[in-house]
């Protein structure tokens, strides 16, 4: 969160600077604010106030607390209140420690790995499905509704579904046995080299529908006349797809990719239910890492440091990204 966003006063002050006239005032010919506009400004301030306060409550205060704790060696282990944390002040020792924390960096790398595999997979599958659904065909509405259901399933429940499916005596091995004629008893979730793949499959199952939904909305929005015009000019289906459809849904594609990247970065529910981050640390992503270090090791000042580093990095990245999008 940018510093200016932190207090409602600062926000209104900034709003007043960048936009001295409310929309309705533009047409008015009297320079000073009319009573109606003043009323609008007051009401606008009051109506936005609860949300502003909640933002301060959940962002500003926790961030400051987090910053403070991260500069100490405080832990709740000995019953010491967090306000007493200054007694173990250690400046940037936690930060130095994070830089050398192999488990943290591999959790971060693993998170990126899941993103690198799942986002393109979900995109390609979703796009393929969306292409099938552009034209009308009998049963389209029903199939469409069915294909959307995975993303509505509670992620923790989806995690449990795949936990069952991937049991060594479970149906996935059952299907594989039928297909291969062998007795497949792979222990997917307790094999460190397969557990992450299982988690990825579960995520792809659950979130391909989101890509499908968004990309289909984009494809349907491509003007039909332009596609017909291209056909009349001799373009094949593939040429139409490449020269008309893809360029027209570029923004939609970017939105879909960004949404999934952001969400997978936070991946926790389905993964934690399936593997608990294990076996060992083989499926430990950044959220699981933080959760475990918090509740198991109780090194809260250290966790605060990790969390803060992630928040600051994300802020920089998203502020940059949002600015880029704004310019478009």
């Amino acid at each position, binding site marked *: 969160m940018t510093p200016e966003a932190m207090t409602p006063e600062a926000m209104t002050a900034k709003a007043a600077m960048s936009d001295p006239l409310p929309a309705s005032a533009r047409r008015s010919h009297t320079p000073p604010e009319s009573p109606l506009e003043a009323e609008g400004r007051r009401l606008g301030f009051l109506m936005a106030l609860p949300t502003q306060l909640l933002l301060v409550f959940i962002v500003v205060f926790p961030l400051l607390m987090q910053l403070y704790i991260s500069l100490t060696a405080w832990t709740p282990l000995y019953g010491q209140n967090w306000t007493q944390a200054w007694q173990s002040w250690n400046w940037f020792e936690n930060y130095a420690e994070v830089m050398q924390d192999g488990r943290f960096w591999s959790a971060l790398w693993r998170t990126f790995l899941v993103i690198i595999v799942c986002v393109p997979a979900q995109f390609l599958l979703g796009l393929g499905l969306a292409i099938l659904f552009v034209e009308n065909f009998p049963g389209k509405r029903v199939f469409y509704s069915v294909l959307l259901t995975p993303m509505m399933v509670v992620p923790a429940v989806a995690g449990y579904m795949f936990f069952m499916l991937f049991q060594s005596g479970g149906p996935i091995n059952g299907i594989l046995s039928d297909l291969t004629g062998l007795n497949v008893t792979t222990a997917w979730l307790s094999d460190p080299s397969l557990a992450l793949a299982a988690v990825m499959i579960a995520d792809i199952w659950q979130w391909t529908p989101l890509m499908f939904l968004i990309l289909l909305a984009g494809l349907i929005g491509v003007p039909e*006349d*332009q596609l017909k015009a291209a*056909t009349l000019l001799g373009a094949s289906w593939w040429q139409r797809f490449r020269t008309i459809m893809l360029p027209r849904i570029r923004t939609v594609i970017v939105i879909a990719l960004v949404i999934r990247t952001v969400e997978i970065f936070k991946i926790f529910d389905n993964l934690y239910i399936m593997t608990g981050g294990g076996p060992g640390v083989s499926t430990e992503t950044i959220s699981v890492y933080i959760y475990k270090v918090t509740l198991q090791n109780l090194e809260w000042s250290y966790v605060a440091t990790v969390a803060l580093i992630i928040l600051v990095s994300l802020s920089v990245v998203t502020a940059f990204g949002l600015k880029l999008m704004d310019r478009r």
Partner: protein
Amino acid sequence: MASITLSGLTKTFGTFTAVKSLDLHIADKEFLALLGPSGCGKSTTMNIIAGMEQPSAGTVRFDDRDMLNVPMGRRGVGFVFQNYAIFTHMSVYDNIAYGLRMRGLPKAEIDARVRQVAELLGLTPFLKQKSAGLSVNILQRLAIGRSAAVNPQIFLLDEPLSNVDAAFRAVMRTELKHLQREFGQTMIYVTHDQLEAMTMADRIAVMDRGVLQQVGSPIEVYNNPVNTFVARFLGSPSMNLLPARLGTEDGRPVVEVTGLGRVAAPASARGSADVLFGIRPEDLTITATDLPGAFVMEVVFVERVGPRTIVHLARDGQELKAIEGNGFPVAIGDRLGVVAKPESVRLFDAATGQALDKEPADG
């Protein structure tokens, strides 16, 4: 370059018949306007010719080739959409080059052709521009140029002027006619605007409810409408149609226009029947009330539209519109005589609406 022959063309959507056994021949290099109100089947006809839709029955031939199994991309048809369907994410150049690139022509050849078309259409200064945000007359030329670049045998234009504001239409009409001469292709122009059809086309085909009503040169269709639909659809204000009775007087056919009086009927009219008396507003002359044979009527409204004065006249529930010149001295409430030019009187069967002195429609 090609002629187009449609025979027995029929298109049904479920129980709705959009086009009903349409027979029409369009000669090579002809400019034909397909005219009719919305829903009359003209756009469906056009889509079938382009291959965007398959007919339920009938054939489409270009010269002697049956086109029904030729996919839309290979028919050699240039299509200008109502909204132009410009690829707004591409530059003007890329739009014109599109069809050529899809054919995989060499770069140099594409470039030469694009420049040639752009020059012809006056698009050269815009070649590098993004096509989004160009003004409508440039978009129209671009839409034509994009189709023309691949040298289609046939040009189809789907109401290309309906999104243009009225002030600009006249300019665009002239430009379009000019372009058609320039390219020399067979052109079908779909429109619901009779003025567009009249001013541009070599021939007009009038459609209503899926049925072709009349085909002919603009003057022919205007002067000799085959039925009351065509009579009403062409001309603004449209032809006056009044209930009347055809009879004979002294061995000559006369029409008794209900409540107004008697006029001589066209020589071709025979017998006695209930008819509709049709006369174009410009074929009425306002005279003194005591002129023999004049209908005596009261002026109920006067529209002064620049060069013309449209006089609305009424008597006993019968209404007529007459056109006079600019500044014609008339006021509401005046009692006047109205005389119809005998040679301009058209009679229609009161029950069927068909012209009594109908000449067979060609095409």
